[in-house]
């Protein structure tokens, strides 16, 4: 498939992902390679830098998947703790960012309240909530700030109504900006399956959002 043809698609002008750094069709070297080496060598601060570098994409993915900030933050923390526990075994067969996505995706799909730990977390959240201490989130969250805009809220709700099996690929592809092959790697499914799930997800979303799209009802066939 040539690059020229990609540019000529009807969606070519609509950038996927929210950050320019997300789109990487051709990667020669993993940009995290140096940090990973430092981390494996036990260098202080290397893992923290990796956390900072990947926290945005992990949190973004988990917000779309969990649909709730507290839950997303909890699973994001579990993701990085899991990375810290097992990530040194990362052998570089894929990009580290893909590996991170995979750990996060598994954490989201396997969301389980681990004995003790999450109980403490839930207790902590309950205490914070009781104290009315949810202020650090609200004003800083652009998504909440625009929650008043019906559009964003509707799209988020529509995403949440998708099954995780359809939501995950469409979030990774359309929102996080991964390539089909990367989505396939993250989810350990065939690229063809990724494509078909994205298509099914989009069709389902289109039905959910038909009132916002200004298209006649008869044009929709789920």
């Amino acid at each position, binding site marked *: 498939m040539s690059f020229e*043809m990609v540019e000529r*698609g*009807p969606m070519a002008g609509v950038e996927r992902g929210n950050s320019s750094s997300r789109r990487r069709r051709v990667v020669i070297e993993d940009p995290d390679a140096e940090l990973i080496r430092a981390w494996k060598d036990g260098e202080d601060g290397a893992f923290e830098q990796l956390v900072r570098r990947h926290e*945005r994409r992990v949190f973004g993915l988990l917000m779309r998947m969990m649909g709730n900030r507290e839950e997303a933050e909890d699973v994001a923390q579990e993701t990085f703790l899991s990375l810290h526990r097992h990530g040194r075994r990362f052998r570089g067969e894929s990009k580290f960012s893909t590996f991170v996505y995979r750990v996060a995706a598994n954490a989201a799909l396997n969301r389980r309240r681990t004995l003790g730990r999450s109980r403490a977390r839930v207790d902590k959240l309950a205490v914070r909530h009781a104290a009315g201490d949810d202020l650090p989130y609200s004003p800083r969250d652009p*998504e909440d700030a625009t929650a008043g805009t019906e559009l964003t809220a509707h799209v988020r709700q529509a995403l949440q109504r998708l099954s995780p*099996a359809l939501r995950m690929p469409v979030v990774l592809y359309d929102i996080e900006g991964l390539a089909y092959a990367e989505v396939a790697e993250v989810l350990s499914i065939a690229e063809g399956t990724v494509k078909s799930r994205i298509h099914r997800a989009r069709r389902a979303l289109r039905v959910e959002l038909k009132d916002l799209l200004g*298209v006649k009802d008869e044009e929709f066939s789920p």
Partner: protein
Amino acid sequence: MNHSDVQDHMADYLEGHLPLEKRALFDAHLDDCSDCRGEIRSMQEMVTLLRSLPEPEVPLGFSESVMQRVHEAESRVSWLESLQAAFRLLMNPRVLAPVSVALIALGIIGGAGEVEKALVLEVPGGSLATQTLPADGAVLAGIPVPSRSPKSAVARASAPGANFQIRLQSGPVRVPEQQTPHLINPIPLNEFSQYARGFRGGVVKDDVFYDSAGVNLEARRSGARMVAVPSRARAQEKQPSAEEWLARLKRNPGDFASALSSSTLAEQELWIANLARHARQRGELPEIIAALRQSPNRRANLLAEDFEAASRTQDSSAYR
């Protein structure tokens, strides 16, 4: 190209992944078909909406919070891992023979040989392992030591107030020849693990071992359940099968959940995934989940959710 073809190729068309010939056919169909044009337009709008969602902002102090938990886990894991590894080593029949020899190194049983790993209780001036004599067996901080009085051994090896450590020694360890192999079955896994979590070494005072919290380890030891098991018989003992584990789980979900909680997270996941798979294959999963849910043990109730989650994950229809 007809409506059905358009459906099949819409995703590739939208992304510009269609070969030129197919794209031309696709465009030609769109020129003639207002329904398909409308569908493409609405799909484009929908994808544009999706891609224009604002990016959620990471919670303030997120990375600091992660690092705090990492540091907490690190300090906990170093002790827990070494002692749990030691415990597993002792309890696993596959390594029982070498461990029996390792116990010889501890002076619990006599003999000579060489093993790859041994538990060594270190005090200034020497190790307890070489200072003690064969005995009926006892447990000190989860490590089998002779009941012949560790304090006297320590008294010989160290001055009052000396700090002591327990470590898992790797590499060839020279031990005496094996004579009457015994394995001391230490305190139950759960108790051991709970104790090991808080164990940070100890101190010798008036010839008595105290841990860092000031608890008299001998007193603690006396409350532990200790059983001497001939190692050969134990080595031939069959590991419980998945069915047996499931039967145990159904019989006493609370005990199972408590014991499981002393494992590492990775081990818990493995156990849950394997048992959930076995239970599902045998059609027992609902029964297992119900037993866990109905247990008065809070850990068992949480485990019910884990089994449900593992079952959902394994449901191939969801993702494969």
